[in-house]
């Protein structure tokens, strides 16, 4: 790590000078045989990878109409080119969103359009060679699927979907990424991304009960596998394991305690994250999501609440209904989806985000806070990409921006915003999303954090900000790692419910 230095802040944040080939390479570690076989993927690159890949591309083009539209619609206007944090940080022109798409589009043209079949050179069509496949692997693992570029695209082309399609094709020929595929295997086998077995989970939760008792004098519980609880909390497993994540978990528990809500975690479904989305694989996405349904049915809960995890909330908010039958959209012929529909309490949004839960309780005046407990912090808020651009909260448009900010203002006295072209729907990715939060991509992660670090520096210098709150486990882990490289203290980052935890008054306002 010592040999990777942070890129210098740009004096004027414009398109950086190009450095062609700056991020050429082999990409992150490739998944090995055991990892791939465990999740039903070909063990390694198959012999007939070319034909299989083209076949898969054809399948995806017919399955996802959006993908074909994205392939055909781009007019290369360049509006997206300087919007990607990885392009800004690495200066590699292939990290311009349009160029990244063209890695895929050129192959699409060669095999799926008439001009590309007849006159490939004239229309920028390329054969799918081994070099092209390797280039895909490298550069489609330099996109965090954050969708910032698509905000600026006049046609609404979603680069994330192109990246997902490319990764799915790569996986289908046995050329997947170690980090994501290993994690998916652990979820299926053990129940969470970390591989925390139930005994370790229970031990950790018991420890937390002792800690909170010692800190506050209150018996705040961290229940697990409790049948008949009102709320099932599905949270990223990092919340049980890492810092600062665990402080938000304590915050959720205090909110449930203070509002007298019965709740439970599930040892079988102890993960909110869903890496099936990162690799663009619907079957994995669904299989992982179904663990939530299984736990909800097993425990007989009335509500499903999702913890601070960006892409988990995108999956929950946007897809959990059709994947599992939570909320509207349960398949009439899916017996378990129908059971879940009947079981859940539809006076509440299903699923709910923990921020929605907490904000509702604040509005109902069922929580009280001593805001001065956060007076040591001057706080800013980093919108996480999947929450910002892939979901909503509450009943108003933009609720996913307002509700976390409302909570911060309710529990703390000092809140300031970062530059408006870098927050809300225009937020920058932390640099570690979309399956890239792995040590073998650390250089990319450090460089990709550049635009966020630049504007953070601004509010640090001008307004004395010393805490950046966020509601995503990946953002928390990524910033903890890369902020010291930019000269910030790693403890500057934390969760919204960490702030809630600091200020909440327990044992009052039941």
């Amino acid at each position, binding site marked *: *790590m*010592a040999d990777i230095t942070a890129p210098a802040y740009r004096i004027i944040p414009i398109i950086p000078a190009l450095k062609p080939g700056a991020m050429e390479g082999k990409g992150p*570690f490739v998944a090995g045989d055991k990892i791939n076989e465990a999740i039903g993927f070909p063990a390694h690159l198959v012999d007939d990878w070319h034909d299989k890949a083209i076949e898969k591309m054809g399948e995806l083009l017919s399955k996802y109409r959006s993908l074909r539209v994205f392939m055909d619609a781009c007019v290369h206007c360049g509006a997206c080119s300087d919007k990607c944090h990885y392009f800004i940080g690495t200066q590699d022109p292939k990290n311009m969103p349009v160029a990244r798409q063209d890695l895929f589009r050129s192959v699409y043209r060669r095999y799926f359009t008439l001009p590309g079949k007849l006159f490939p050179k004239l229309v920028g069509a390329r054969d799918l060679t081994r070099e092209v496949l390797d280039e895909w692997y490298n550069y489609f693992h330099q996109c965090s699927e954050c969708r910032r570029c698509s905000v600026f695209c006049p046609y609404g082309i979603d680069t994330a979907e192109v990246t997902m399609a490319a990764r799915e094709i790569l996986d289908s020929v046995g050329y997947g990424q*170690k*980090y994501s595929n*290993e*994690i998916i295997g*652990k979820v299926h086998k053990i129940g*969470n*991304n*970390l*591989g*925390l*077995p139930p*005994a*370790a989970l229970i*031990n*950790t939760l018991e*420890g*937390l009960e002792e*800690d909170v008792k010692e800190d506050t004098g209150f018996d705040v519980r961290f229940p697990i596998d409790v049948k008949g609880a009102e709320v099932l909390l599905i949270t*990223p*497993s*990092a919340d*049980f*394991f*890492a*810092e600062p*994540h*665990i402080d938000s978990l304590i915050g959720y528990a205090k909110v449930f305690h203070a509002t007298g809500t019965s709740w439970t975690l599930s040892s079988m479904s102890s993960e909110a*994250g869903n890496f099936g989305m990162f690799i663009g694989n619907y079957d994995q996405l669904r299989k992982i999501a179904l663990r939530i349904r299984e736990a909800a049915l097993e425990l007989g809960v009335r509500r499903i609440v999702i913890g601070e*995890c960006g892409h988990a909330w995108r999956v929950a908010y946007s897809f959990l209904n059709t994947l599992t039958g939570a909320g509207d959209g349960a398949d009439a012929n899916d017996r378990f989806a129908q059971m879940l529909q009947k079981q859940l309490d539809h006076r509440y949004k299903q699923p709910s985000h923990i921020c929605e839960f907490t904000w509702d309780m604040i509005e109902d005046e069922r929580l009280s806070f001593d805001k001065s407990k956060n007076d040591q912090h001057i706080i800013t808020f980093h919108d996480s990409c999947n929450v910002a651009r892939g979901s909503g909260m509450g009943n108003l448009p933009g609720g996913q921006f307002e509700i976390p900010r409302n909570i911060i203002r309710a529990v703390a006295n000092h809140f300031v915003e970062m530059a408006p072209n870098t927050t809300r729907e225009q937020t920058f990715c932390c640099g570690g999303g979309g399956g890239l*939060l792995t*040590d*073998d991509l650390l250089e990319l992660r450090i460089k990709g954090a550049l635009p966020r670090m630049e504007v953070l520096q601004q509010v640090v210098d001008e307004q004395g900000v010393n805490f950046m709150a966020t509601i995503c*486990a*990946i953002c*928390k*882990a990524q910033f903890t*790692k890369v902020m010291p490289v930019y000269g910030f203290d790693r403890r500057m980052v934390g969760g919204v419910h960490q702030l809630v935890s600091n200020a909440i008054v327990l044992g009052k306002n039941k």
Partner: protein
Amino acid sequence: MSSIEVGGKSYETDEEGYLTDLSEWNAEVADYIAKTENIAMTDAHWEVVNFLREYFEEYQIAPAVRVLTKSIGKKLGAEKGNSEYLYGLFPYGPGKQACKIAGLPKPTGCV
């Protein structure tokens, strides 16, 4: 697969230098891995590494950072029971770097 050579014996590791077979681990290997991480093992380092191995033996996973800091705090005094102390020993992060030296698998996920 990669491997490391320690005391005339070869040990298989993964791409990132984590020992593949936990049972092969010994103090010499730990010292060797620590050196590749630019860490000179002291009693304080060993205290952490030994706790990690004990915990792993019981739970098949490394302890949460908080569990680790609490245990170190109990053993060595409250002033050492915090993540600052652990980062001082293992600058790349106590979770991953200490696990690597202790011969445990790398914690995966959003950590």
